[in-house]
């Protein structure tokens, strides 16, 4: 393995203070805001990462194409691009396509070509399959069968931007301060046991589900094999990918409420279950029997998002930090409170959730219309 000591530890410290950083901000009224604050917040936790991965998810991003699936695709070769574009033309109505605007950012080395495609599926959709299932299947096909192409964002009116670099450098490269969204998540990476490559940066995304993660999913192998039975193929070479597919399976396909999903990913201990009232005990036992293979073992703090919801969750004994800030209609989740305070110094409430207890921000009633209103072009 390449010696990353010089990037990782420029001051030659005998203790490396890295750990991933996660941050999320949501306006529960659906009002869109620029990424400027979120970028400052994640940059404030610079020392938690080591420059080998940074990324952002933005919801309410493409109101002008709110009904099309927006694919962000990275190409590692021209041949990959040709194959994938031919595949997209065969399987979708291509409404619009463009290169994702970037600006010259010296710290960003060897970026892949990143393009976005706004796609309709009306004509192509076979009978019974839902639109989402159709898209899921096509994303898996591109990521596993076509050369050098990775769809790393595939939802409607949202998008993921990510790559190798510190998060603030990735934001600069992709001009993220110019975009608007009502929900942002951001990640600074310190890869532990998987490569620091462009696809391996967080967030991980399928349809409009995204996940950012601090920690290590040691149950990755079991989770991955279980998800493969449902057509999810892991191609990003790192553990967090399974969380994105798990929430898509549990919440979109199996229609489970979030509170139940939290009990699948971070179930109570057996002796805690033993002390629960009978009915609840039955439910917890059933979840362990049916979904035992989706238990996430190992330390984690994650921020999961999809349209209308932002969810913070840690493992059952909170081996990674997560702190919450509330101010008016804004909800903030962060590895460190200082990052929240930097952009929202006067919080109504700041608190630290228990391990395994989800923290949820939901769009308020009537907020949905705002999310699809207004637009604007990005130029760098």
């Amino acid at each position, binding site marked *: 393995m390449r010696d990353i000591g010089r990037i990782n530890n420029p001051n030659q410290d005998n203790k490396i203070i890295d750990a991933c950083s996660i941050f999320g901000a949501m306006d529960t009224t659906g009002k869109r805001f620029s990424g400027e604050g979120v970028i400052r917040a994640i940059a*404030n936790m610079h020392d938690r990462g080591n420059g080998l991965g940074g990324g952002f998810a933005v919801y309410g991003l493409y109101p002008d194409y709110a009904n099309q699936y927006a694919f962000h695709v990275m190409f590692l070769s021209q041949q990959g691009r040709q194959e994938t574009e031919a595949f997209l033309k065969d399987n979708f109505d291509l409404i619009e396509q463009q290169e994702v605007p970037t600006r010259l950012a010296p710290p960003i080395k060897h970026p892949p070509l990143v393009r976005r495609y706004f796609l309709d599926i009306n004509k192509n959709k076979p009978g019974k399959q839902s639109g989402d299932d159709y898209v899921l299947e096509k994303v898996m096909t591109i990521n596993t069968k076509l050369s050098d192409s990775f769809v790393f964002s595939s939802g409607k009116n949202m998008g993921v931007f990510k790559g190798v670099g510190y998060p603030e450098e990735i934001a600069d490269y992709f001009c993220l301060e110019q975009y608007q969204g009502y929900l942002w998540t951001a990640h600074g990476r310190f890869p532990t046991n998987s490569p620091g490559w462009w696809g391996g940066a967080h967030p991980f995304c399928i349809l409009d589900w995204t996940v950012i993660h601090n920690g290590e999913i040691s149950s990755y192998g079991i989770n991955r094999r279980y998800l493969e039975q449902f057509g999810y193929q892991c191609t990003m070479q790192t553990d967090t990918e399974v969380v994105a597919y798990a929430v898509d399976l549990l919440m979109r396909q199996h229609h489970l409420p979030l509170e139940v999903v939290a009990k699948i990913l971070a179930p109570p201990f057996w002796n805690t279950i033993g002390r629960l009232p009978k009915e609840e005990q039955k439910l917890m036992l059933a979840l362990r029997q049916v979904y035992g293979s989706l238990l996430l073992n190992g330390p984690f703090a994650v921020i999961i998002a999809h349209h209308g919801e932002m969810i913070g969750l840690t493992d059952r004994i909170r081996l990674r*930090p997560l702190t919450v800030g509330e101010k008016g209609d804004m909800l903030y989740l962060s590895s460190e409170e200082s990052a929240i305070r*930097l952009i929202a110094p006067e919080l109504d409430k700041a608190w*630290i959730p*228990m391990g395994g207890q989800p923290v949820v921000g939901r769009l308020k009633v009537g907020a949905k219309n705002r999310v699809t209103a207004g637009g604007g072009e990005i130029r760098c």
Partner: protein
Amino acid sequence: MASRKNSVVKMDAGGVYYRELNANLRKAVTNSTRRIELRNVYGQRYIGTDLNKPVEIEIFGTPGNDLGAFMNGPRIIVWGNAQDGCGNTMNEGEIVIHGHAGDIIGLSARGGKIFVRDDVGYRAGIHMKEYRDRKPALVIGGTAQDFVGEYMAGGVLILLGLNLKEGESHKANFIGTGMHGGVIYLRGSVEEYQLGKEVGVAQLEDADRQVLKQLVGEFAAHFGYDAGEILKHKFIKLFPRWLRPYGRLYAY
């Protein structure tokens, strides 16, 4: 960046990297400084580390992880919340937090005192230790999350639960798991299953009341409480049942 008046130094920490900030602090305490005011603190780590003088550092903002790590003498007052690892391996001095604190507060502390007005996160007081007259104290005004006093090897941990409602008990599980030294005084009650299996429960004796009276008195003075009122309530004492619970684990 720093201005100085009557042995009081004022520093604006806004945008200052933690290495530079801590270097500035080291420089500032070598003079006859008695008090340092730090404004606009947003997450700088290790504030107060490596300082050996009895200087007072007031922090306005949110200090970063490992506040007061390896500190040896100063008193730190935080007007806000502290993050994770506060008082890491601190040797002497005092940290007073007018708010809550994150995980592993007081980890491996070997001396000094930490007072927190509100709640603390996971694993408060993990592996605090003591040697002769070196006895760290951690006093928590609110309640704690799981694993409070984990692997505790010495010192005094007091959990007051002042923000619990009448009749509400502490929620923490795995209290004192692996505990093999020191003592926890808990105001209010816990169920048997909330305790680590190394932990015993006892009523307070006179010597315990002396310790409580002293530390709760200091706590009340810091945060404007009536110590007498706090001490009226029932306390229990949690202690390690064995000093070397795993001494024979690999000995056969």
